[in-house]
């Protein structure tokens, strides 16, 4: 069979499929009611999330500030300890250069 014949066959199949449309009337029944119910749910869910996220902002802000304070204290303590260690036992600079 050549390509033209196959094309004709395919066109005939498409025509049959076009003619045989699925009846969606049952699925469409009361669709608007179900849709509005879902929209209500979606809106409530999104508004709950929005409300929760807004209310959590102060909590996260406090967390960030606490972390910042804790981090700065650790940095200060570490640098103080390093300075003290250096003052007590200063390393000769030559030892850093003569690694081999």
């Amino acid at each position, binding site marked *: 069979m050549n*390509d033209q014949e196959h094309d004709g066959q395919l066109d005939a199949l498409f025509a049959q499929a076009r003619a045989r449309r699925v009846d969606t009337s049952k699925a469409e029944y009361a669709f608007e009611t179900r849709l509005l119910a879902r929209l209500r749910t979606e809106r409530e869910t999104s508004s709950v999330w929005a409300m929760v996220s807004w209310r959590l902002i102060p909590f996260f802000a406090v967390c960030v500030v606490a972390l910042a304070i804790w981090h700065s204290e650790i940095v200060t303590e570490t640098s103080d300890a390093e300075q003290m260690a250096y003052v007590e036992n200063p390393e000769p600079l030559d030892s850093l250069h003569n690694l081999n």
Partner: protein
Amino acid sequence: MVSAKSSIPDEQLVDATLAGDDNAFAELALRHKSRVFGVASRFAHDAAELEDICQDVFVQAYFKLRQYRRDSPFEHWVLRITTHKCYDYLRKRRRSGTHLSVDAMLESGYEPSVPAPPAPHPDLERLHAALAQLSPKERLVITLLELEERSVQEIADFTGWSTSNVKVRAFRARAALRKLVENQK
């Protein structure tokens, strides 16, 4: 409620929805649902998936209504969303490996009202089985072009692809489909 709104143009209903009138959106859904269901039924695996696709379409339309620019009819805009949703479902199904059964929708509790559906034709079974083997893009373009009888320009508008891209994809899809149908013999 709804009947009083039946003569109002779509654009006014859009405005009313944006002002918070959900019944106006229900009227929009009532007007355009059959088109959306018609297109989605070409891609949906079963009745549940059809309902999911159509609900997703209208939920997205509702939440993105402010993005509707009114440069084309509302139906056109909704069909663009429908096309994208159908494509998403095709991709999702392909990833999950769910195989499309032929006329599954009619067989999965679909009980259509009058007239009773004709028995699945073996030729159509072959066509649907072949369509299920195409890539999501190929299936989308060939379905819209050949089964929904949309023009190349319309498909380009719905998908966001260029017209030449649509033509190339349609050509490739047709060639692949021809081969698949041939091999099924």
